[in-house]
């Protein structure tokens, strides 16, 4: 059996007396699309920070493609999309993408930059400063930046936050395309509808622990909603 794209092995994370994660374990196979569901403060962002290698767990271990997430080779295979842009407002879209393409040492960078700008429908605004973009356009450029180096593993932290319907639709289409291309995707979201539409599997985090790990195909979305999203169960807010 091939090495999983991601293995999370009994990780815990504390910030002083504040517990963020407690004994979290799961794995994600290459090409799988997994959604992590949980209410604010459940530990989803902390989990993604640990997986991406920018934060270390207090206990436990994470393996990306069988090795440490902070390995440079792993970082080159990874992309993160979150509510943070990872873009410079005082540079144009082209300048931002050319900067990242040099950092990631992308061959045929000019062509690749044009391709991703076209994918997110921003070619017409490529010479404008990012500071002049709307929230939706900025998020589209954030996606273009993340896909620039054709990552094997995409980590998405609440990527739909603050987007209009058009931008949400575009992001969903792009994610479906990435899934078809065989990329491994890990998404944290509050949006159960989107999670069930896109994912193969879902993991529910509540009170810093995993309380459910199941296949979307085997589960009735209404049952997930009833069991984990209802206010009566102390589950996730919709």
């Amino acid at each position, binding site marked *: 059996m091939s090495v999983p794209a991601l293995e999370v092995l009994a990780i815990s994370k504390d910030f002083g007396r504040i517990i963020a994660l407690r004994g979290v374990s799961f794995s994600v196979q290459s090409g799988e699309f997994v959604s992590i569901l949980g209410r604010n403060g459940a530990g989803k962002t902390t989990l993604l*920070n640990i997986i*991406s*290698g*920018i*934060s*270390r767990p207090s206990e436990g271990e994470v393996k990306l493609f069988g090795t440490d997430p902070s390995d*440079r*080779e*792993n*970082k*080159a295979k*990874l992309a*993160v999309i*979150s509510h*943070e*842009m*990872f*873009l*410079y*407002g*005082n*540079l144009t879209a082209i*300048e931002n993408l050319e*900067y990242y393409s*040099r*950092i*990631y*040492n992308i061959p045929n960078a000019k062509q690749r930059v044009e391709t991703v700008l076209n994918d997110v429908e921003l070619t017409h605004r490529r010479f404008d400063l990012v500071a002049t973009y709307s929230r939706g356009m900025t998020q589209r450029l954030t996606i273009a930046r993340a896909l620039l180096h054709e990552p094997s593993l995409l980590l998405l932290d609440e990527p739909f936050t603050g987007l209009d319907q058009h931008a949400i639709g575009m992001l969903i289409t792009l994610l479906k395309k990435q899934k078809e291309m065989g990329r491994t995707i890990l998404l944290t979201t509050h949006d159960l509808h989107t999670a069930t539409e896109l994912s193969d599997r879902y993991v529910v985090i509540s009170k810093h622990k995993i309380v459910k790990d199941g296949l979307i195909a085997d589960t009735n979305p209404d049952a997930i909603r009833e069991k984990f999203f209802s206010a009566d169960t102390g589950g996730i807010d919709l």
Partner: protein
Amino acid sequence: MMRTAISILKKDLRMEFRSKESILAMWIFSLLIFVIFNFTFEVSRLVMLEIAPGLLWVAFVFSGMFGLNQSFALEKENGNLRAMALMPVDGGQIYVGKFFSVTIIMLMFEALIFPIFIIFYDLQLSLGMFRLIPVLLAGTIGFTSLGTILSAVAVHTRNQQILLSLLLWPLVSPIIIWSVTLTGMVLSGEVTEAFYPLLLRVGAFDVIFFTLSYMLFDFILED
């Protein structure tokens, strides 16, 4: 290997030339220092030669603090500091890029403010003043090599500017004191035998600060 450092340097300089935010603020701040001191104290030329080197470095260092704060504040905006931590590159390369951008911006500011300083304090230009070039270079490099890494530490905190001052001043003080002494020698035209050994000492500190910062920068980027 230097690809990352050069990319960061080019990006930072492009943003600075576009906004001129740091250089302009540093220049205005230094001008204010010179104006206030010039019109507040009516002192003889001899006394002025005594205090001018210190004044020049006060202007450089306080304005430089602004430049340092600005350098990583730009990275913190929009989460770019996290983006740096995610880059598949050696943290030392990121440090080198940031160090050169801060140093170049500071040297450009020094080149712009120095003529104003000469005019305000009625100093005589002479060939001997070229000795100031290695002094300013060595002093500035010491200040920015340490300032760059400490600025990256401080940017993670709420009181970034206070923390940077608290961390930087005790460590960089020897370099600043020696640079003031060296500048005083050049401006007064009394370059003694102690000049080059002292300049070498500043240079040695520069090398130590730069090397240590280069090696430690990977740890700074982690949360």
